[in-house]
């Protein structure tokens, strides 16, 4: 009743070799072959054989469990959604290794942001003894390579696309899969059309903006599993308040997704200390800040908010925007800005830059400094240099080799890395355990991603984080209104990102953006932000009561 695939090639080979005695093995060789095959045998259905094969890697309990669940219960199609820094890559590697040992994965494709390609190849080689190849500009032999690591952008190029789509991959791993949340993009459609038996999607933020993000990820693994998108949206938009529906979807997704949280894994051997530093503007700086307020009148509130926030970061950032405003204005209006541009030139060095230098000099340790603005990044590098402190820049826009190089320089030579937001993803900097958030993003969860770069699996020291904000400015406001409250809720429930992901009508990030854009006055911004925060508070309390 069960199919048995016979081995038809053996007897012809044997008959042939019996006529050519030089092709025959001696008794010892014959026994060795049998012994070798027995060593290679997979003796049982259950368990992870990969663990015996990798005695040099210390896997954590939650990683081993995740791999077992994916291989033996989820049957090889899953979303690995551990929080940042819990070792999703190790989990994926372990699953890959297990499938290779069990003879189920030979052709493997790993799609990852370009900046992570080298890191993947290195980890697969060192930790998993898996040789992986990556295409260079001209060379790519997709058919010949068993394990290939590349970026989606490279894979979907005209000259590669067809060969890749022809291959029946046994396993496909997609790193940073939240980038595939939009089903209308070319990337999404490309991934959707790949041939795959098993598939792993890796992301720390399975729901970035809205529930439909998750829908699209699930559709890559099991098309149709959550119905079709239109019905799905209708159902969950109309009834987004109804618990049953949400619970229903959670239980469905539970069969496909593994999400470990930091607090569940006992990974708090290294602690994080967050210090909110409130600094005061110098008189000249404050004067400039007040001066900007006069712009509120003739402009949308968003413009003032942007400028004010920029001034809290650096003169340079604010200057760039003013200049841009001037360029975009008609000739007669352009004159208005000259006054401000002139004034900003008179402002002395930024108070935050001084404080930053103080901190760095005092400890003598390595620091990573995050800023939202490129102009600030340049300014800080210059300022550090003036003070005899070595630094390297970092940005997500750097190409692969430049990123690797900057990371290497930071590790071996420079004391400080000055990074822009775009650099937040995909580099591991465990060797550093001091961070300054030089200016504050609107969304507190972004901070979490930044911290995850250094407070992650493998960090042996306590991590110290300084959040800078200027008193009596918009930054102070953000800190009081958003950061401190949210931090308080977080202490109460722990899994705040979960709640922030599930606000009806869009994520926290999304909400803040629309509040900023759609409000006419700062008063309106405040009220709306307060409402948003109380909604979060409400959900937090509800969650606490129900648990």
């Amino acid at each position, binding site marked *: 009743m*069960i199919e*048995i*695939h016979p081995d038809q090639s053996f007897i012809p080979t044997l008959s042939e070799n019996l006529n050519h005695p030089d092709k025959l093995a001696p008794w010892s060789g014959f026994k060795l072959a049998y012994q070798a095959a027995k060593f290679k045998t997979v003796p049982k259905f259950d368990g992870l054989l990969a663990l015996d094969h990798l*005695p040099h890697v210390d896997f954590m309990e939650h990683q081993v469990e995740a791999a077992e669940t994916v291989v033996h219960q989820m049957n090889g199609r899953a979303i690995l959604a551990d929080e940042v820094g819990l070792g999703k890559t190790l989990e994926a590697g372990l699953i890959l290794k297990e499938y290779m040992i069990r003879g189920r994965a030979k052709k493997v494709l790993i799609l990852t942001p370009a900046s992570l390609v080298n890191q993947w190849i290195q980890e697969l080689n060192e930790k998993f003894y898996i040789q992986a190849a990556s295409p260079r500009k001209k060379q790519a032999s997709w058919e010949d390579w068993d394990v290939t690591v590349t970026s989606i952008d490279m894979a979907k190029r005209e000259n590669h696309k067809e060969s890749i789509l022809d291959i029946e991959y046994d396993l496909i791993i997609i790193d940073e899969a939240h980038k595939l949340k939009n089903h209308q993009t070319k990337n999404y459609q490309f991934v959707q059309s790949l041939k795959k038996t098993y598939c792993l999607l890796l992301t720390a933020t399975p729901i970035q903006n809205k529930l439909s993000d998750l829908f699209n990820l699930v559709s890559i693994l099991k098309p149709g599993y959550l119905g079709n998108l239109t019905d799905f949206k209708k159902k969950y938009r109309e009834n987004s308040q109804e618990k049953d529906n949400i619970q229903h979807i959670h239980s469905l997704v539970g069969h496909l997704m593994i999400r470990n949280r930091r607090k569940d894994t006992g990974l708090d051997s290294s602690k994080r200390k967050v210090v909110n530093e409130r600094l005061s503007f110098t008189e000249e700086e404050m004067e400039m800040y007040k001066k900007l307020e006069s712009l509120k009148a003739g402009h949308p509130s968003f413009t003032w908010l942007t400028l004010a926030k920029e001034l809290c970061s650096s003169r340079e950032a604010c200057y760039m925007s003013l200049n841009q405003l001037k360029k975009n204005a008609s000739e007669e209006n352009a004159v208005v800005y000259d006054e401000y541009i002139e004034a900003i030139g008179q402002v002395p060095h930024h108070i935050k830059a001084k404080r930053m230098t103080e901190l760095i000099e005092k400890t003598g340790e390595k620091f990573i400094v995050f800023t939202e603005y490129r102009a600030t990044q340049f300014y800080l590098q210059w300022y550090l240099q003036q003070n005899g402190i070595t630094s390297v820049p970092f940005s997500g826009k750097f190409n692969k080799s430049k990123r690797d190089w900057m990371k290497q320089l930071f590790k071996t030579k420079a004391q400080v890395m000055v990074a822009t937001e775009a650099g937040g993803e995909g580099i591991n900097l465990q060797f550093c355990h001091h961070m300054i958030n030089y200016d504050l993003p609107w969304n507190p969860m972004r901070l979490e991603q930044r911290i995850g770069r250094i407070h992650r699996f493998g960090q042996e020291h306590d991590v110290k984080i300084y959040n800078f904000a200027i008193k009596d400015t918009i930054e102070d406001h953000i800190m009081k209104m958003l950061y401190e409250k949210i931090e308080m809720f977080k202490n109460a429930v722990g899994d705040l990102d979960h709640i922030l992901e599930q606000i009806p009508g869009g994520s926290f990030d999304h909400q803040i953006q629309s509040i900023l854009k759609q409000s006419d006055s700062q008063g309106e911004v405040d009220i709306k932000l307060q409402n948003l925060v109380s909604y979060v508070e409400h959900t937090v309390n509800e969650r606490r009561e129900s648990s």
Partner: protein
Amino acid sequence: MNAVNPYKTFVKQFFLSYGCSIIDDLPSHFTIQLTSEMDEEIMNRPFYWHYMKKMNREGDPMRLTFTDTDQKQAGGIYLHAGTPKLHTLYNTAIKKGRTARLYEVIHEFTAQNRAMSPWLIVNALLHYRGKQTKDEPISIGINLIHGTMMLGMMEKIQHMDFEPTVSDYTFPMTPVISLSNAYKRMERHIETYIAQQDNQWIKESLLHLKQETQLLESFYESEDIDLDSFTKEREQIDNRYKPYIEMEVINGGMFYISQETSATWIH
């Protein structure tokens, strides 16, 4: 220390069988001097050997040190289940030991020349494939004169001596049953063997196959997915769950064994 590292014995035997020598043998590690042939086979440096041959030079085969501890300072290749070099050796061993014709070594002299019966011995792996996977090694022998079938064959003959040439005062008998007929009988035996097994794994695989297929079909009927992705998904569900067994022969050969020896197996 704990039990003897099983890989250590294998590695030593492997290199000794193929003409390499052990030049250093300590409790914690041992060093092998490779022959040129073995270096070419397992060290993965084709350019070096290509160059040496072109220059008509001998080349300098490498030495390999193995250890059964993972202490870094000891140096050497740490032998454990996943050691990459060990897996290279497995593959080389299987490649080199695929077929054989061997005669049992008979020392004692008898008045009459002794007849040696031909046996076909086949070692195979049964790969169980379905929702989950495992392998089972199987070793079968068939006497090509009267068709007696023996299981666990390798375990029976493991400690006997065999040579590629026939011993003095013995003669090999001509097979009555052809190799391909004997092999077919082995396949039939395997079928029966599998049918008699506990087939829980097959049931589970089929259950999953059915569930996933039904789910997919319902999506297709309610037009949540188009025909294209339906067809593709359907195939992939088969890949993941459809239970089957793949028989892969590791090696096999003609073995000439005296009736005195085979008689002891019957009991």
